[in-house]
């Protein structure tokens, strides 16, 4: 691929169709006997997306490799019967809903980090956090597996117009200098279980601190995610092919 950037200035590959051989990567992944997990939340009306997400993920996400799907929901009774591939497992975890949507994103990060600590770290090697209101349309394979992985937002903007244009410089997520690397979407990120733990801990701590100071940063957890990734650069980036916002 010559038409796109395939390597960041810190030598992290940017994954686009045509830059990799899934066969070679599959062989490497199999050598190591890895298990990958997916975390997603279906709270309130979002239970509606469960079937579409799980059935498409079952078909296209790391097909042929064991995947643990961890589905957090406040409506376990609304979950339809889902046929899983033999190597995959679905774990439904009941959570409480929060009255304010701003609290939801904080609590997601917090929930993820505490579950990593108490459970996921013993069950998976890699963990990916995704929004549930998506469907997989094509294969997403082991090319996404690396220590700390973020997806370039399809709203990628120029350095000067930051999407999360911070009007509260005292917010924990205000960018001290906009380096204009990349803007990442909070809808699909992941990596090794230890890296995701560190990331979710840092983001939820930042969100809590903002709340205590009465600040609510626009796009919330996404701002915190981006701030974290500016200081702890991802080891691999996924192109916007991996999460395309159809509102564009």
């Amino acid at each position: 691929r010559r038409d796109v950037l395939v390597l960041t200035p810190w030598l992290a590959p940017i994954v686009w169709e045509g830059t990799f051989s899934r066969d070679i990567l599959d062989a490497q992944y199999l050598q190591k006997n890895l298990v990958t997990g997916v975390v997603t939340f279906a709270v309130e009306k979002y239970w509606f997306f469960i079937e579409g997400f799980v059935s498409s993920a079952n078909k296209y996400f790391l097909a042929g490799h064991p995947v643990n799907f961890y589905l957090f929901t406040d409506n376990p009774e609304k979950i339809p019967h889902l046929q899983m591939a033999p190597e995959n497992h679905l774990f439904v975890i009941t959570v409480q809903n929060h009255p304010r949507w701003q609290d939801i994103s904080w609590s997601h990060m917090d929930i993820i980090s505490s579950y990593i600590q108490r459970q996921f770290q013993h069950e998976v090697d890699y963990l990916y956090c995704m929004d549930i209101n998506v469907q997989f349309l094509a294969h997403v394979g082991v090319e996404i597996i690396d220590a700390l992985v973020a997806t370039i937002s399809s709203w990628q903007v120029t350095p000067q117009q930051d999407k999360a244009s911070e009007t509260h410089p005292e917010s924990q997520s205000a960018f001290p200098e906009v380096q204009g690397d990349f803007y990442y979407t909070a809808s699909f990120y992941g990596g090794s279980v230890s890296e995701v733990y560190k990331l979710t801990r840092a983001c939820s701590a930042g969100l809590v601190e903002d709340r205590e100071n009465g600040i609510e940063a626009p796009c919330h957890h996404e701002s915190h995610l981006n701030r974290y990734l500016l200081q702890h650069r991802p080891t691999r980036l996924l192109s916007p092919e991996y999460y395309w916002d159809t509102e564009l």
Partner: protein
Amino acid sequence: RRQDVLTVTPWLAPIVWEGTFDPEILDRAYRPLNLTIGVTAFAVGKYTRFVRRFLESAERHFLRGYRVNYYIFTDSPQSIPRPRLQPGRRLLTVPVQKHPGWQEISMRRMEAINQHVAKESHGQVQYLFCLDIDMVFHNPWGPETLGDTVAAIHPGYFDVPREQFPYERRSSSAAFIPEGEGDFYYGGAVFGGSVKKVYEFTKICHMTILADKANGIMAAWQEESHLNRHFLSHKPSKLLSPEYIWDDRKPKPPQIRLVRFSTVNKNYKEVRN
């Protein structure tokens, strides 16, 4: 960015070329880690004459500002020059036996490096580079080169179809690579990685070299052949472009914007006796 060369392998390992990375971003990421990087180089017999230039040029260009341990493997420690080194950098000699024939010496490097890691360097360094001594640094070699397993693309074969790679083609050798297989031809003069990974693959290469010895066969390019066999099945996590392993006798093609590390012109017949 570079559009004239391949900068990512099909297994998503970066290929480091000038213009693909920002040295400042990498420095900012690596400096705080307080790393010590090791360098092994073999100066046996007449090859001790290359040590001074190697070390002096490394002091100017190799991971400047980082802590470095130079491990010079030699049969005559007393003839190793000890130039002044920057702070945080030190020179240690490692005794090795002299062997008849340069191929023998070359073949025993894997074993020597592996044993030294087990005995000493694993506790001293986090990353290790194994370099040929008869070479000189001309331009910066920085933390862009650090990775789990690092191999360098041989300058003679980076632009050449794989059928022409001088892999070992005899199936009786443990370094055998059949026609139609192979990603790159890696040079034996530069390889490295995390100290753990270097320990692992030098052990494996040493084993395959011994297997060949037992069968009375010596691979076409000695340990370089075995290294290539290993890196075919265990792909490196990072590749260095030929900027990092250049041969000054070759004319510089446009893809080579700068030469960081290259061979010293020498009389092969003279030094190999």
